[in-house]
Structure formats: structure tokens, C-alpha cells
């Protein structure tokens, strides 16, 4: 009961003040027979020590990424987070505060959101960004819906290079809101012809950059082709560190850019919580979902920040809202902005160079193994290899040898026979020469 400050004596006084005999008199509106006589059939409360022991035991049954040679990516990446980031996000005033609806006593949150929005817009090469979404995949879903609203069309063309789980999210949203999704097949070699699919019913084309296979390509021709037919280009960036080194989607003509911000400031955490990034052009501001923080002045003329353009949102527009979304990913956005303010553009670029360098070195070493072929030509910190066998089996064999060597594409696309021999390998700044050596030796042994 260490979290419950009321004592028995307090409860007695309060019940008396209210004028009832017992607590169940306050549950008088509960229909007959539905008020439980006993607590639920679950264990009684435990001491801190016991809870630590129990959950610690479960934690120790997992292989932490930092404890083995680790090359798993595909939408979530292991990067080094400076110690000050986690320390700062645990400050009470950040951790235990609410959404900044009372701006006078939330300027801390509001200012960091304004800085975050500015950082994201600049990273992505766009005019503005919102205060974050749940994650990259739901941001991608919302971007497609926004494209439908703007163009008043209902068909989205989805590149075969988009993360299959992102595609599945878009499909679920499309199916149940009467929209259409035209998804191209898995495209490891970058051979798909997106442009010829664009017609007058297309609201948008959505591509991933770098794509799920790690491949990077110039998006300007796709942007042009889309615009020529009155459609929009939506770009999804799942490895945000890449934008420290490669052209921004904005400069290539994207209309909406979404991303997963996890790589900066946020750990892997088995898939969540993450932070969705969402940026667009000035002219589409009012069609953007999610929270927005804006600059203004207070009654004394001092600069300050507020949540603004709230009339897009569900709590005001209700049926006519741009989305049903209520929240952003506050604390994860804070971690992102703190880490990025430590890095700055100079640090981010260098971090990206370390990532790219490590990936190139690894790719060359893997390519030298007989039975392994590096399939991706241009990449940032992730690439695809073709192996002479079933990729899933090989990943398991690597795991048995203590190496987490990437993601078998068949894990994301279990029913596509054409990709069964593909593994997607990520390499970030955390990988050492020793890690690479162990990985290469293990794989060489397995495919022999």
C-alpha cells in the first residue's frame, strides 16, 4: 500500500463527512449483483523487492542487444544514447506532467515541442512539422488519409519497398474507411515501376527512404510524376539518422514526410514506445493531424508557446476532425530533441558517416563469403544480402552461435516465395570490429 497515502483514520473521517456508513454506499448506482464482494482472483500486493525479483527474472530471459553482436534493423535501430538524455527525461516536471493545455504552467513542455517541430522540419527539408505521432507506421497511415483529404481522391499507391508492417497498417485503415490501396510486390532490387501506376484516381504515392531493404534512390522523378497527375508524394523515413548524410525528402519534392524517430534518443524497447514524425508543406497546414505548438506572446508581451490550431482536432471538431488522434508521444519526442540538440548538424553528420562506414565495411566482408551476395547497390546503414539457403533457418543458426545477424525478410513477408533467401542487415555505430569478425565467421561457417 506504499502508493496509497490515505490511512484508515482518514477514510473513517471522510466517510463520516460524506454521511455514509461504508465505501460501498458510494457504489450505490452499480446494478444489483454486479458489485464484487471480494478482490479479483489475482495475487496480493507485493513488496518492491518481490516485484523487482519477479520482473527481473523475466527480463533476464531476454537477450539484450548490447550483449551480443547485433545487426537487426528493419524499422528500429540500436544507437548509442548519451547518458544525459535519459537523466533529463526522468525529471519529475517532464515525466509526470500532463499535456500542456494550461500554457502558463507548461512552458517547459511547449518550448521543447516548438524546438522539436523546428528540428524535424529542418531534418526532413519541409516547412513545418507537428508535435509528434505515436510512431512511424501510424504516421504513415495518417499521411495517406491526409493525402486523400487534400486531393479528394481515395487511392494510395504503395511502393514494394515500404516496410510490410507499415503497409499492413495503411491497408487496415484503407479497408475500413472505404479507401483503396494499390500495393506493389516486394522489390528488393529496386526494379518496380511505380510511375506507370499513377493515374487520375491516385491521391498519393508512398515510398520508404531508405527502403525496407536499405536501398536509397532519387525520389525527384517520382515526385514529378505524381504532381503531373495531381497526386502527392508521401515519403516514410524509418531510419532518421540517415538524413544526416543523404538528401532530405523535402528537397526531392515530397509533399508529406513521415518518419520513425526512435533512432534518436529512444531505445529499442521491444517495439514501443516510439515517436512518429510528421512534416509537410505550408499550404497543407490545416490538413495535418496531431498536436501543433505555436509561438505567441502573453499578456505582458513576453514570448511564449501554446498548443494551437486545435480546431482540427477531435475534441473540438468531433465528427469533422482531421483524425481521432488525441495524444502525441511527448516524452519520446523530448528524448529525441535532447539527443539531437547534443548532436547538432555536425554531430549528426559524423554519426551518420560512422554508420555508413561501418555498413560498407560489413557489406564488403559479407560479400566476400562464398554463397552470400550483397544485393543493395546504394545504401546508408542497412542492406540486403542473398544467401544460398533459407534465410530464416540461417538467422536461427546465427542465433545459436550468439549472433543476432539481421532480419530474414520472410519474417515480414511469410507468404512470398521470392524473398525467402534474403536477410536485411543493419550496421550502426555500436558495432565493433570484433562484432563484425564474429558475425562474418559465423555466417561463413553456416553457409559453407
Amino acid at each position, binding site marked *: 500500500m506504499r502508493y496509497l497515502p490515505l490511512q484508515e483514520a482518514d477514510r473513517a473521517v471522510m466517510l463520516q463527512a460524506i454521511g455514509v456508513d461504508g465505501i460501498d454506499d458510494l457504489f450505490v448506482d452499480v*446494478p444489483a449483483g454486479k458489485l464484487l464482494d471480494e478482490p479479483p482472483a489475482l495475487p496480493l500486493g507485493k513488496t518492491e523487492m518481490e516485484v523487482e525479483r519477479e520482473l527481473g527474472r523475466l527480463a533476464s530471459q531476454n537477450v539484450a542487444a548490447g550483449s551480443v553482436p547485433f545487426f537487426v534493423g528493419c*524499422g528500429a535501430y540500436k544507437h548509442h544514447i548519451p547518458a544525459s538524455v535519459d537523466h533529463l527525461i526522468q525529471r519529475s516536471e517532464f515525466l509526470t*506532467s500532463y499535456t500542456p493545455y494550461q500554457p502558463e504552467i507548461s512552458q517547459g513542455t511547449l*518550448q521543447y515541442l516548438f524546438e522539436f517541430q523546428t528540428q524535424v522540419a529542418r531534418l526532413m527539408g519541409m516547412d513545418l512539422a507537428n508535435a509528434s505521432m505515436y510512431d512511424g507506421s501510424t504516421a504513415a497511415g495518417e499521411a495517406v488519409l491526409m493525402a486523400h483529404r487534400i486531393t479528394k481522391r481515395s487511392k494510395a499507391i504503395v511502393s514494394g519497398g515500404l516496410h510490410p508492417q507499415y503497409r499492413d497498417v495503411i491497408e487496415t485503415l484503407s479497408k475500413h474507411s472505404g479507401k483503396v490501396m494499390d500495393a506493389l510486390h516486394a522489390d528488393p532490387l529496386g526494379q518496380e515501376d511505380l510511375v506507370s501506376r499513377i493515374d487520375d484516381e491516385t491521391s498519393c504515392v508512398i515510398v520508404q527512404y531508405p527502403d525496407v531493404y536499405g536501398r536509397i534512390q532519387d525520389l525527384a522523378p517520382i515526385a514529378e510524376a505524381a504532381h503531373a497527375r495531381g497526386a502527392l508524394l508521401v515519403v516514410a523515413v524509418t531510419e532518421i539518422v540517415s538524413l544526416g548524410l*543523404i538528401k*532530405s525528402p523535402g528537397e526531392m519534392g515530397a509533399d508529406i514526410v513521415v518518419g520513425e524517430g526512435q533512432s534518436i534518443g529512444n531505445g529499442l524497447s521491444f517495439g514501443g514506445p516510439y515517436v512518429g514524425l510528421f512534416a509537410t508543406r505550408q499550404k497543407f497546414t490545416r490538413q495535418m493531424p496531431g498536436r501543433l*505548438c505555436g509561438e505567441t506572446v502573453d499578456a505582458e508581451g513576453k514570448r511564449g508557446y501554446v498548443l*494551437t490550431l486545435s480546431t482540427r482536432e477531435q475534441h473540438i471538431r468531433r465528427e469533422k476532425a482531421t483524425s481521432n488522434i488525441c495524444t502525441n508521444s511527448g516524452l519520446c519526442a523530448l528524448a529525441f530533441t535532447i539527443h539531437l540538440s547534443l548532436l547538432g548538424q555536425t554531430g549528426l553528420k559524423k554519426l551518420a558517416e560512422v554508420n555508413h562506414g561501418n555498413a560498407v565495411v560489413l557489406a564488403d566482408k559479407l560479400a566476400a563469403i562464398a554463397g552470400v551476395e550483397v544485393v543493395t547497390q546504394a545504401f546508408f546503414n542497412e542492406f540486403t544480402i542473398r544467401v544460398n539457403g533459407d534465410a530464416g533457418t540461417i538467422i536461427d543458426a546465427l542465433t545459436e552461435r550468439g549472433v543476432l545477424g539481421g532480419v530474414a525478410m520472410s519474417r515480414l513477408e511469410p507468404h512470398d516465395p521470392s524473398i525467402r533467401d534474403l536477410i536485411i542487415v543493419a550496421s550502426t555505430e555500436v558495432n565493433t570490429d570484433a562484432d563484425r569478425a564474429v558475425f562474418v565467421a559465423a555466417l561463413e561457417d553456416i553457409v559453407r
Partner: protein
Amino acid sequence: MSMNSQGRPSEPKISGAGDQAGKVTFTGNRGLEHEVPLLFERAGNFETTGVDLPMPKRVQSRLGGLEREEPIGLPGLTEPEVMRHYVRLSQKNYAIDSGLYPLGSCTMKHNPRLNEKLARLPGFSDVHPLQPQSTVQGALALMQTLAGYLLELTGMASVALSPKAGAHGELCGMLAIKAALEARGDKRSVVLVPESAHGTNPATAVFMGYKVRSVAARADGTVSVEAVREALDSDVAAIMLTNPNTCGLFEPEIVAIADAVHEAGAFFYCDGANLNAIVGKVRPGDLGVDAMHINLHKTFSTPHGGGGPGSGPVVLSEALAPFAPVPYVLRDSAEFRIVEDAAQAKSDGGDPLGRLTAFHGQMGMFVRALSYMLSHGCDGMRQASEDAVLSANYVRTELRDLFTQPFGDRVCMHEVLFDDVFLKGTGVTTLDFAKAMIDEGYHPMTMYFPLVVHGAMLIEPTESETKEDLDLFIATLRYLAMQARKGNAELFTDAPVLAPRRRMDETRAARQPRLVWQPGIQAKT
């Protein structure tokens, strides 16, 4: 009633705006509270970096000629500068750890620090969702354990853990209902929503292509089964009800309503935002609920984080269980596995509505919520709900002579609803009243929600307050109400005067949106 237990004067001195608020300093700082320039305004920081990195390997670029050429425009700060920037920002925020947060329907309860410690164990924080399943059995076991707790507490058949927040969970639950109707070839186009519902309810329904049909509440603030029956027909797919409702009241006819809805072939979606009133006391499954989202960041203490991240698992009835989205965790004898693929789910006998997010859900929040549940236990969770309801009714009892309740004085659940009738003729609005609370050191209560009540004030103290803190809060609200009655309107209309900022010009923010920093432009009066 005057409060004197802390040597506090019975009639506090009323400070004018020119008082301690008025001293002008050279720096613009005020004691511990500092003015903080934007990161982008600090000179010379575009070349700096506060992160030491190894030298990159020298390699031939494989970037395909797509190198970024223009500087991005992101300043970098060294660690001491970053610490100061963010510590100073933090000091401008109110937080649960600083004081009572009476926000109705938000459940601002204490966020246990054990939750934070355990979520950071490398076995939870440093595992990738796509690692081979054999290497994450502990994580899968935790998800199963959490699911088991949620099912036992709610009396439901199945739970979808993946939705990332409450509104996301709402979408999930409603999609499950739609899928169930489609599976039996039933085309229905209407969803019933009470006027008092939170905006996400109609927004979700409309997104899915449903027409919203409003159900009026009766004079006591609750929904009658007659009103529901009148609105029901064979075209209604579902009713979306919040219970306890947005006025803080338990819906007394909820079982009859559920029965009527089921008889009409429709489903009952329950918005679980107010679950904190009934955990361990009532099980939604016993009331006839088909789908309900749970806000782990409200009821189960995961931190609000200044606006997220949340987590919104959805419990489902037997009828809806087959349609749960992927992914979900199963146990095969000794091993846990996660089912990620719809086709595979079908071979297991399911018919998933699809996928709502990449990866598995908010694992970081699962750990925290389970840590809370284990810490409280079945007895503690039941006690927490009782204390939440007790505290709200205590506040109601001690304020009811001065504050007005829209539906008359009656027992409430974990939150109490007042309207602005008691402020009539004072020149003080609900907004003004709320801003005066800020100067007294309190975050305001939820204002102007639910929309059906004029000038609504929704107060939810939660179970985390001592009686002493509740008494001071009550005394403060009484003091403010009496000041309003006395005609001391300036106390309110100028407020807040002691916060880091005065009232913000929200009109200007909306008319001339400035959403990113731009060099050379700064908002001035």
C-alpha cells in the same frame, strides 16, 4: 470556513498585479525561474557538437550520389549547456510530483518510480521487436501476464495489446465490431453516441464511415434504457458509452442498455477512460460490454510524460475475440510465440481485422503497468479505486454548498462535476476561476468538458492525495468561490500573475501560426 492549521491567515492578503509579480530584473529572470532562449538562438552553435564520436571508417561512398549538400540548420550544444537548457525548461512545468492535478477523466495518479527502474532493465529496454522469438521469451511472457491481469480485472475474453493510445484502442474496438458485423453479412451504418461523449468517440465512428446518432441524457446526467431503445433500430451497429460517464456518474441502467443493444443485434463499445473508479469493484464484462479500451497511462499509472506516450490495450468479448488484430501472443505448452501475420492467425482459427501498428505495442508501458499491478495486487488495486471514489465524494461534500452541480447533488464516482451557475453575476468565468487556481499553486481541473454542461469543471483528485492535501485543496477552492461571490473579479480576470507566463494570446497563435523557428523573426507585442 477558514483554514488555520498551518498558521495561515484566515483572510489572505490579496496581492495586486504590481506586487511581487512586478519587479523588473536585468536578466528577465525571477529567482529560480530563468528565461530560456531557443536552441536556435544561441550564437555559434551550428558547428558545435556535444557528442564525441569515433572516426568514421574510410570507405568509398555507397550513397549513390545522394549526399546531402546543404547544412541542415541544427544547433549542437555541449552537455553542460544541454543540462542547463532542459533543467531550466523543466522548472517551468507543473507536474504530479509537484502538486495535485485535479484533471477530470485524466487520472493524474502518482507514477511509481519502480516502474521506471524496471522498464529500463536491459532485458526489456534493449531488445528488438524482430529478434528471433527464442531470444525474447521473457518479454512475451510479460505481455501474456499483463494480458491475464487485464482479463481478470475486466472479466472479458481476449485482449489486443498493440494499440498505442486510448483513441487508437477505440479505433481497434470499433474495427472489431465492424469486422464481426461484416463476418455475419450484416450491413449497418449507424453508431449511437451520447451527447456527453468525448470527441474521440464520434470522430472514430465517422472515420469508419458510420453516421452518428445522438442519445440525450436525462435530467440526472445518465442515459436511460428508454432513450437507447428509441434510438435503436436494425441499422445500428453499436453504442459507444463511457462508464463511469463523462459526468463522473456510474450509468445505473447499463446492464439493461447492454441487453437492449444486444437484442437489436448491435454491440456495446465502452470507453474505459474512467476505469479508475471501478478496478477491483466492478467488471465491465459482467455489465455486457463487448469491447473496451484501457488507458494504461490513466488507470495503471504509466507516466503522462507531458503528453504521451500512452498505451491503449482493448479487451474484447467472446463474440469479438476472433477479430482481434495482429500481433498477439500465444502460449504453446512451455513456449511463447507472437503471431504477426493475418494468414497465420487464420490458420489458428482467428479472423484478424488487420494490423494497427508496426511491431508489438508499447512494451515500455506494459512493463510499467505490470509493475504497478504487481505492487498493488488485487487488494491494493481495489483499495485504490475505493480511495479514488472516496476522495471525489469528499471533495463534493465539502464544496457542494458553494459550488453548483448540474444534475443536483448525488453520489459520484472518482470525479465530481460542477458547472458555472455559482459564478453567475460575478463577472468570473470558469476559465478565470481556473487561472486563479494557478496562482494558488494548483493545476486547474478539466474545464468546459463535457460540452453538455455550461462552464463545466470536472475534478478528479485520484487516490494519491493525503487527506491534508485534499483539505487544503478544498479550502482553496472555497476561498476562491467566496472571493468571486464578493465581487473580487480582478483576482480572477488578471490571473495568473505568478506563473512563468501570463495568459497567452491564443487568437494570435491561431491567426498567424508560427510553428517553427525562423531566423530574424520573433514575436513581439
